[in-house]
């Protein structure tokens, strides 16, 4: 669905590259996470893929179209959910969706269905200018589905949303994936990437450091651990034991046989820990997006 080869981009065309010679492929039906901190080159890459930025160097195929050639009809297959909400404040939620629906040449979804899907029931006739930031974000997200996109660009789809609404949005993304929609998810939130993505790419300073499935990354880079809490002389004792070490595995047996176990959890390295391990850089994200 997406094929990128030797892509480079410089905003001032002065040799300072926001994206440096990157390449990747996204298969049909795949949810692909593009992860990195602010300024890593995520938005630049998405800008090029969506046609908002002009392709300078490299080859890019999106939904079967060579983006070097101007072909507006490709947008019939594409949906874009922007990080910053961008809806008409003077139009109601329904009018916003109805207007956008008319801009496409393909069958579109019922605006009321989308309004219901993102939990804006009862707000369809309220002007978007009166919406909270979260409500505007949900409307922007709903708008990106109006044309039943085959390829869906999602830029920080849960940013600024409360956990319940964020869960709803994540469910919608999963449902779309189950129906075969290809998603290109740009985020600096590793938890969402871990939950939703089939594969992730780590991008930093305009370069892709690694591409793989979250599960494979955890297997490759993570240490398997077990956290045990048990009671010894009326006191709660905590131990973290590495399961790869034979002696330590034996210790788990001793604890289980001799003490009263309070809690016992196996533990994997998080995607964030792997990101730090691979890139040497931390991701910064807003608490509300966790």
């Amino acid at each position, binding site marked *: 669905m997406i094929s990128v080869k030797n892509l480079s981009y410089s905003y001032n065309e002065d040799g300072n590259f926001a994206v440096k010679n990157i390449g990747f492929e996204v298969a049909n039906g795949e949810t692909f996470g593009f992860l990195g901190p602010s300024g890593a080159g995520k938005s630049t890459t998405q800008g090029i893929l*969506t*046609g*908002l930025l002009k392709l300078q160097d490299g080859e890019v195929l999106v939904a079967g179209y060579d983006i070097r050639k101007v072909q*507006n009809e490709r947008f019939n297959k594409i949906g*874009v959910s*922007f990080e910053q909400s*961008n809806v008409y404040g003077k139009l109601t939620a329904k009018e916003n969706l109805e207007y*956008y629906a008319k*801009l496409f040449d393909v069958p579109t979804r019922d605006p009321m269905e989308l309004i219901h899907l993102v939990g804006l029931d009862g707000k369809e006739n309220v002007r978007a200018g009166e919406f909270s930031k979260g409500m505007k974000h949900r409307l922007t997200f709903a708008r990106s589905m109006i044309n039943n996109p085959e390829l869906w660009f999602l830029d920080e789809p849960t940013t600024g949303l409360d956990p319940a609404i964020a869960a709803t949005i994540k469910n919608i993304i999963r449902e779309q994936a189950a129906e075969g929609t290809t998603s290109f998810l740009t985020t600096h939130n590793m938890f969402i990437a871990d939950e939703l993505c089939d594969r992730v790419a780590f991008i930093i300073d305009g370069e892709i450091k690694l591409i793989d499935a979250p599960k494979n990354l955890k297997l490759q880079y993570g240490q398997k651990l077990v956290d045990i809490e048990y009671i010894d002389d009326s006191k709660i004792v905590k131990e973290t034991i590495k399961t790869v070490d034979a002696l330590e595995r034996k210790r788990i047996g001793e604890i289980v046989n001799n003490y009263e176990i309070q809690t016992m959890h196996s533990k994997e390295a998080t995607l964030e820990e792997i990101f730090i391990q691979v890139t040497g850089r931390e991701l910064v994200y807003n608490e509300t997006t966790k």
Partner: protein
Amino acid sequence: MKLLSNYLKEMKIAARGFYFYIEIAMAVILLAILLLVVSETSTSNRKQFVYNDMPQKIAEYLKDKSIKDGDARLTDATEFKLKPVEFVITNQETGETAAHDFDDEKIIKLETIETLDSSTGELAGTTYYAETEEDMIRLAYGESEIGATAAMDARGKVSYTYYLQGYETDKLKSLLYISHSESPSVINAKKDKQVVRTLGVMKTLNNRENLVPVFLVFAGSLMGFFIVLAYIFYDKAEGVIRAFAVTPSPIWKYLISKIFVILTTVVVSSSIITIPVMKGQPNYLLFYIFLIITTFAIASLGLLVASFFDSISKAFGVMYAIMIALLIPAFSYYIPSFDPLWLRFFPTYPMLQGFKEILLNGDAGYVLTFSLVFLAGGLVLFVLADKRFKKTLTV
């Protein structure tokens, strides 16, 4: 269909904003000014205060004569309030100065005679006759009008001493001098020897109509320039242009829908101003063709300017400079002697002249020629704006 959808959406947004109503309200205010404040004909009711330093009977005889000749008419006496005042009068011939200091306050009634235009019979001036020279001087100073003392010498010839404000032109001073230097019979005799040949009858707009082209250009097209910028920057602030850019609809449809909204408002506001004043006089087909094309060109200029900036505050300097530049041809419109060649290259110059020709039912060739020029220029500006917007979608 997409274009119609864009246009309807833009009209809905415009109707829910205040710019649309500002333009319509402005047109209504301008129409009210034209109909209620501006008269169709220009009147110059020159006022002067006169003290007759001559025997009462002679003064009365001179006044009665001009009334009988039909040059003047006696009206009700006019009341004036004289306030305490200090001023200095300089004699222009000798350079001598005389200080005047009045500390009293009084109300006086002056005999009033209105002088009439000999050709039209309309009011041309009003003369107030003061009983003392002091009152005349105080009134001339207080009312900022001309004052005069009319005196009769031993030979029976009337001489005038004028009290001016100091800012009058040399032309007026010469006129006052000449008008009393020769007897009217001599002037008329000389005048009768002049042969006057009429070369043609020039059609002109009356006072009220003459303001319509200016209102059309500045309240219509220039407001369009400003409002299209305002609409674009509002959309940029909301980020909706980026959302539009990821739909199959081309950017030019978004831009042209903005221009259509401006055209709608300008056509409505210009009709509000023009139709009640001009009635059936102009060629309205030509009028609307010229109005639509010039507005398209100026709005396209607005789009191009908007493409270089991401907020109205950043664009303000350029926007202001362009608006001032577009206003300059108005000076030439009102001061025909100020008509340098370079001014003709300002787009508002042919716009003003074009609207004037349409309202006069004059040179349609001039109007159509400039319609083509504006159409070509507008298309170039629109294409450039489209290219700029495509390049700056992430702004």
